[in-house]
């Protein structure tokens, strides 16, 4: 390709070639930097489709009145935990409930701010086994909104839900876990 007599011209070529390749590679670098951030929404979509990580619906659904499958009974267990350093008492009023798929139920969770200051809490739900998350339908949930509590204030927070008729046969127990976070810093004022 390069011969000795054309050395100088070739050096010129090489330099512009280097520039071209470098530009392309830098473009790849920026594209991959963007791809790293694109993974965030992609991951959410992926989890929505597959029910991965026990993610449940983030906004209320309308109750689909398609009948009740009384031949099956599913146990729904409720557990709660508080994330680091939120001084709230937070627990389900009943620990578990038996439902038929398609049947609407209403349960309460109790929370009390035991500290001396106002705190905004946010409960984040997760369903186990993860594969069942997509069949656990929340119509109304305190987890859709932030929950401000004054010092010493207590509240009962409601959850209205049903279990989808399509729930796979082999699943007989669902565990709904709420983790409570202190989001006073980030709360909408």
């Amino acid at each position, binding site marked *: 390709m390069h011969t000795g007599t054309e050395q100088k011209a070739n050096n010129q070529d*090489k330099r512009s070639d280097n520039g071209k*390749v470098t530009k392309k590679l830098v473009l790849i*670098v920026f594209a991959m930097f963007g791809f*790293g951030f694109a993974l*965030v929404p992609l991951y959410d979509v992926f989890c929505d489709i597959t029910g*991965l990580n026990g993610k449940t619906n983030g906004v209320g659904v309308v109750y689909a009145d398609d009948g009740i499958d009384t031949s099956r009974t599913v146990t729904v267990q409720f557990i709660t935990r508080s994330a680091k350093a939120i001084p709230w008492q937070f627990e389900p009023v009943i620990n578990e409930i038996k439902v038929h798929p398609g049947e609407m139920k209403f349960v309460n969770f109790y929370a009390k701010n035991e500290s001396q200051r106002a705190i905004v809490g946010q409960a984040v739900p997760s369903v186990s086994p993860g594969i069942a998350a997509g069949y656990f339908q929340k119509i109304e949930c305190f987890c859709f909104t932030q929950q401000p509590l004054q010092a010493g204030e207590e509240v009962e927070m409601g959850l209205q839900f049903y279990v989808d008729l399509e729930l796979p046969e082999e699943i007989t127990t669902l565990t709904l876990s709420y983790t409570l976070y202190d989001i006073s810093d980030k709360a909408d004022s």
Partner: protein
Amino acid sequence: MTTDTVNESLDDAHNDDHHDHKMTGIKRWLYTTNHKDIGTLYLWFSFIMLLTGGALAMVIRAELFQPGLQIVEPDFFNQLTTTHGLIMVFGAIMPAFTGFANWMLPMMIGAPDMALPRMNNWSFWILPFAFAILIGSFFMESGAPNFGWTFYAPLSTTYSNGSTAFFVFAVHIMGISSIMGAINIVVTIMNLRAPGMTYMKMPLFVWTFFITAYLLIAVMPVLAGVVTMLLTDTYFGTSFFDAAGGGDPVMFQHIFWFFGHPEVYIMILPAFGIVSTIIPAFARKKLFGYSSMVYATASIALLSFIVWAHHMFTTGMPLFGELFFMYCTMLIAVPTGVKVFNWVATMWRGSMTFEMPMMFSIAFVILFTIGGFSGLMLALTPVDFQYHDTYFVVAHFHYVLVTGSLFSIYAGAYYWLPKWTGHMYSERLANWHFWCSLISVNLLFFPMHFLGLAGMPRRIPDYALQFADFNKWVSIGGFAFGLSQLIFLAVVIKCIKGGEKAPAKPWDGAEGLEWTVASPAPYHTFSTPPALEEDKA
């Protein structure tokens, strides 16, 4: 000894129109754009980092010498394991390979220098700052990063000791340095090959660095992205990985390992290249299956992008995901097996001699294969639940990174030291280095397999009493291995200062353009491209 070579020392004045190498003292190194100078800087830097990270490991092993807490606090222990990992990965192994690339690539492809020499200077000189930030955080109020080299959120965000910002900026700088180094390697290989050197005629060393550079360009920006998310999560109120704000901590692990797994191959593919150069030279046969080696390297690189979640089998993935990642991971054993068999076939019926580069290469083939086998065991989803986060994992990745990558670096260093310094190294000292390292490294890492299988968790400064005996042996192996590396320092210093004069080609079976220039290599080589012999493959 041959006398037909011209020995030029680095400071000899050349009769050419380059002026930049006339500088003396520190300025020569600060301003240099010469690929050999920069390669030397990289190699020394990585060796200093190896000793630094090694010193941290010594403290870790001293703490683990017996059960109970004796020397360090648990939090400081966490800082030690974290920075040991970061320094070894980003400070020792990766810059050492970049050093090899700088020194050898232009000479192997018949180019006068790297394609982008000024960027080359910059990509080296920002590195010391990155590690000054990282190591400097030891002396700050927060202490050094203590969340593991994998910096999982929320350990590195919500529960950070305040070192996250230093850590993130250090990683940013390391990343920029690696990316610039990688771009330089790709441009050099694509544009500066000697006339007639087609891609399939390049030495395998060049191929492995070419592919590694592409891996770096593809995944280092993802690392930069994920640490940026950590930074904004910790200090600017975003919630990428914070469940309270709608984020997901498991997503951190997905993004991190999307970088992390190709990173593993970034640290081993160049090792394959070095060993594939050395084994043919001392078996006095052509490398068996050159083209299969090229394709195997490329397929390992491609597969590395679809296996990341095998680091996360215990995070509660669906069964399908676990099976997918398990099978893809096991698939990697195929091209890797091709390589191991090719090396063995190259040695088969060769006229082998056992100089130091060959000794390290053979040790590499055997010990790296042990690391590969334990990797296969870890790839099996059902048993991984037992191995996960135990010393079995520690044993696995130290076998592939220490007796794999590091041993290949030593093999390469011994192989090219005569070319770099113009002197032969002391065979006697080198033997001490090799045998002390070989014995101690196995004493250090082999019992870790059993500790892990018996249930000893990694990253914990204390352990149950029944692990005491093995840990004592491991620690003794660790101290011995650490000390043995000082012998290497002695070898190198002795070799620079003097020794038997090296001919242009000290290894009679060696092939490649780098052996056609004098030893030590003149400051400028291949100002005009060399003519290739027709039969060079």
